[in-house]
């Protein structure tokens, strides 16, 4: 077994002489600091919470049109026409964390997806691209499925500006 001891010693000493411990620590430190900063990047709360990656969902249509499939039950001004997009709020407004949630069928893959209709709040109504598509909208006595409500709840201001259609999941059967 003597040869094995020598081989181990030689390779260990070689490794110790050729590599820098501080360099290794610096590398690990960089990775840790980088990983710690990722959650600090700005992001909408509606899309957080361990949802699956949905960026690659097959898409079609114009997000600035009421006919866009993700807007199947929207009631309000499209944020994409107001300086934001179909899933982000315009500058100077705050996305309401409290929302109503429904589903829309994607015409490309034929699957139903879960859509969160987060309103953007804090500025007077945008007035551009009004849509009222209402698929799956329920009467006021079913408030969690109703789009006539001002969903600017839990925000600093309750003044409604525009609406988003945030894709949050796949509706499994």
């Amino acid at each position, binding site marked *: 077994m003597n040869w094995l001891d020598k081989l181990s010693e030689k390779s260990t000493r070689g490794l110790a002489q050729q590599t820098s411990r501080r360099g290794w620590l610096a590398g690990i430190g960089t990775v840790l600091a980088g990983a710690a900063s990722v959650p600090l990047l700005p992001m909408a*709360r*509606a*899309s*957080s*919470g*361990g*949802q699956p990656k949905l960026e690659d969902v097959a898409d079609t249509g114009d997000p600035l049109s009421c006919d866009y499939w993700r807007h199947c039950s929207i009631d309000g001004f499209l944020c994409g026409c107001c300086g934001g997009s179909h899933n982000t709020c315009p500058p100077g407004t705050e996305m309401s*964390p*409290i*929302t*109503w*949630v*429904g*589903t829309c069928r994607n015409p490309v893959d034929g699957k139903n997806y*879960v859509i*969160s209709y987060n309103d953007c709040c804090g500025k007077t109504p945008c007035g551009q691209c009004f849509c009222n598509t209402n698929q799956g909208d329920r009467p006021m006595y*079913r408030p*969690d499925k109703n789009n006539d409500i001002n969903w600017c*709840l*839990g925000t600093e201001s309750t003044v409604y500006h525009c609406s988003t259609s945030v894709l*949050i*999941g796949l*509706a*499994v059967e």
Partner: protein
Amino acid sequence: MKGRTVCFAFLIAAAPHAIGDGPVDAERARLNYMLNCQGCHLPDGSGVEDAVPRMNGFVGNFLHVPGGREFLVRVPGSANAALDDASLAELLNWILVTMSPGELPPSWVPYSAGEVAELRSAPLREVEKVRAGLVRSIQQHL
């Protein structure tokens, strides 16, 4: 004690068929959460201060105090949900195990469809008052 709790929660999570009296489909429970709960309770169950109760890291505490187990089914969000009893039982068990494993009593028994059916037939009228009382009991228990 905490270690035991965590281990138990892990076992439950690893053996999904042990939850409730029907097979549990975590994907289905999560979809039902998205469609029926997260609009107010938020995607991770963290709620909104002074407006929507937090479930994440807390809701399991209700199972430690008398009346708490019943409360979770009799609140409007549960009792009035457009879900049948088996789906509601599955969803409640999923919420407890997923969002509050650290607070669950080690010997908790998952909800069954039958238990949920009986409890939701008597929905709460004074929810905030009942909740405040239960939270006081929880604080004394901890």
